[in-house]
């Protein structure tokens, strides 16, 4: 897990220092499971009744106390997410409190609830970034995928309000069978607005009890590989794409698996990154269930130490760790566990996706005459 896909050099240095010292540099607070949309693939959403039955959301002062302790343990970066973040009742009080502590805040949102008042508020003390997910390039797609027939108009209005005030935005795009045909026009929109965009072509299966999750609404692995390639074609100029294709294949062909198998995750999750659900369960990331620790009934540092300890004992799939496709495959601890039920399982979805992606790289290589 890399929470800063566009981190700059100073952020990279701080995150690397944190990695080496197992400092919880970056966290996510999932403030609430409520959302004004109803996306088919959502893993987090609950109705208000479901939420009240499971556990009411925490107050902003409770979150600020967790943040204060996390800050003292080294947290520099915090992502606020949901549900829909702007539905959190005391969002502005929470945000102001976090900024006064010197925490660098990013916000996840679907953008449909951004008003002039919210845009003005954010412009006064801008977040590191607003990560705004675009689910399509038309109201029709939003209706099909998100149950909101005005979603695109609302989200793009939100973008306009933020851009007019200089609030930094990054677009996210989660590709499903319902919006895959919008991919090109979503990228065209991002280019027109001069906004960075990141695309998720892979979705993990459901791991939470409260919903059916993503599995029925995600791309099949071969299509996911094709989207992965298409995204690179859309993002890179031709010369960069050629370098990427040839360089990736070189690394793949040159790679000789060492056979070395170490315990622990292969990413920052549980090493310098943590996630806290709306009900207070701290995890290494949003898609891992265990280890998990309730953070509201013990000191933050104790919860963090328990997560670190739990992650350090995990044995991942030895098949994945010694696989020739490792240099290209994007599998991780969370996908191994969510796809197979155990961390030591091999997620065949990724095997198929990566094998298809290698075929596509080789087809491109032939086109280049290499």
């Amino acid at each position, binding site marked *: 897990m890399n929470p800063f896909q566009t981190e700059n050099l*100073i952020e990279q240095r701080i995150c690397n220092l944190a990695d*080496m*010292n197992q*400092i919880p540099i970056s966290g996510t607070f999932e403030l609430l499971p409520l959302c004004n949309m109803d996306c088919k693939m959502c893993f987090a959403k609950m109705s208000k009744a479901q939420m009240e039955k499971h556990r009411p959301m925490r107050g902003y002062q409770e979150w600020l106390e967790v943040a204060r302790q996390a800050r003292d343990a*080294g947290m520099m970066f915090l992502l606020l997410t949901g549900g829909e973040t702007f539905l959190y009742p005391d969002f502005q009080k929470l945000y102001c409190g976090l900024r006064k502590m010197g*925490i660098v805040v990013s916000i996840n949102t679907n953008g449909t609830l951004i008003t002039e008042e919210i845009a003005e508020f954010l412009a*006064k*003390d*801008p977040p*590191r970034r607003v990560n705004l997910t675009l689910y399509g390039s038309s109201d029709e797609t939003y209706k099909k995928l998100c149950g909101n027939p005005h979603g695109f108009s609302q989200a793009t209005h939100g973008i306009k309000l933020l851009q007019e005030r200089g609030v930094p935005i990054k677009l996210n795009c989660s590709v499903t069978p319902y919006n895959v045909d919008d991919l090109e026009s979503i990228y065209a929109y991002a280019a027109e607005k001069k906004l960075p965009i990141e695309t998720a072509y892979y979705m993990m299966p459901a791991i939470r009890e409260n919903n059916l999750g993503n599995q029925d609404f995600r791309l099949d692995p071969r299509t996911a590989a094709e989207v992965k390639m298409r995204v690179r074609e859309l993002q890179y100029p031709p010369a960069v794409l050629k370098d990427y294709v040839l360089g990736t294949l070189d690394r793949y062909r040159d790679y000789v698996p060492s056979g070395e198998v170490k315990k622990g995750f292969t990413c920052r999750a549980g090493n310098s990154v943590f996630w806290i659900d709306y009900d207070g369960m701290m995890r290494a990331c949003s898609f891992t269930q265990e280890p998990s620790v309730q953070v509201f009934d013990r000191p933050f540092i104790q919860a963090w130490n328990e997560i670190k300890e739990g992650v350090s004992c995990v044995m991942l799939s030895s098949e994945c760790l010694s696989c020739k496709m490792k240099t290209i495959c994007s599998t991780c601890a969370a996908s191994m566990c969510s796809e197979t039920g155990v961390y030591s399982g091999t997620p065949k979805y990724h095997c198929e996706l990566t094998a298809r992606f290698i075929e596509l790289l080789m087809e491109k290589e032939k086109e280049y005459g290499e």
Partner: protein
Amino acid sequence: MKAAKDYVVREIAGDVVIVPTGKAAQQFNGLITANSVAGFVWLNLEKCDTPQEMVELVLENYEVEREVAQEQILSFLQDMKTVGMIEY
């Protein structure tokens, strides 16, 4: 002396990082890192009432010639004051 209210000084694994907030973040929405001596100055601003006291504090903690410390610390503090990052 103290950091201006829009700047929060943090220490991460021995690195001093200055986080602009509020109006300062409107001007520069990023992070500022400091080298060893500059970080020491930022972390100890409130221990000193005057720039000269900071010079003495730096001399107590670093092997540096008085003339060099005098010139560079005073200049650094004046620059930080001019851009509104510290107050004294």
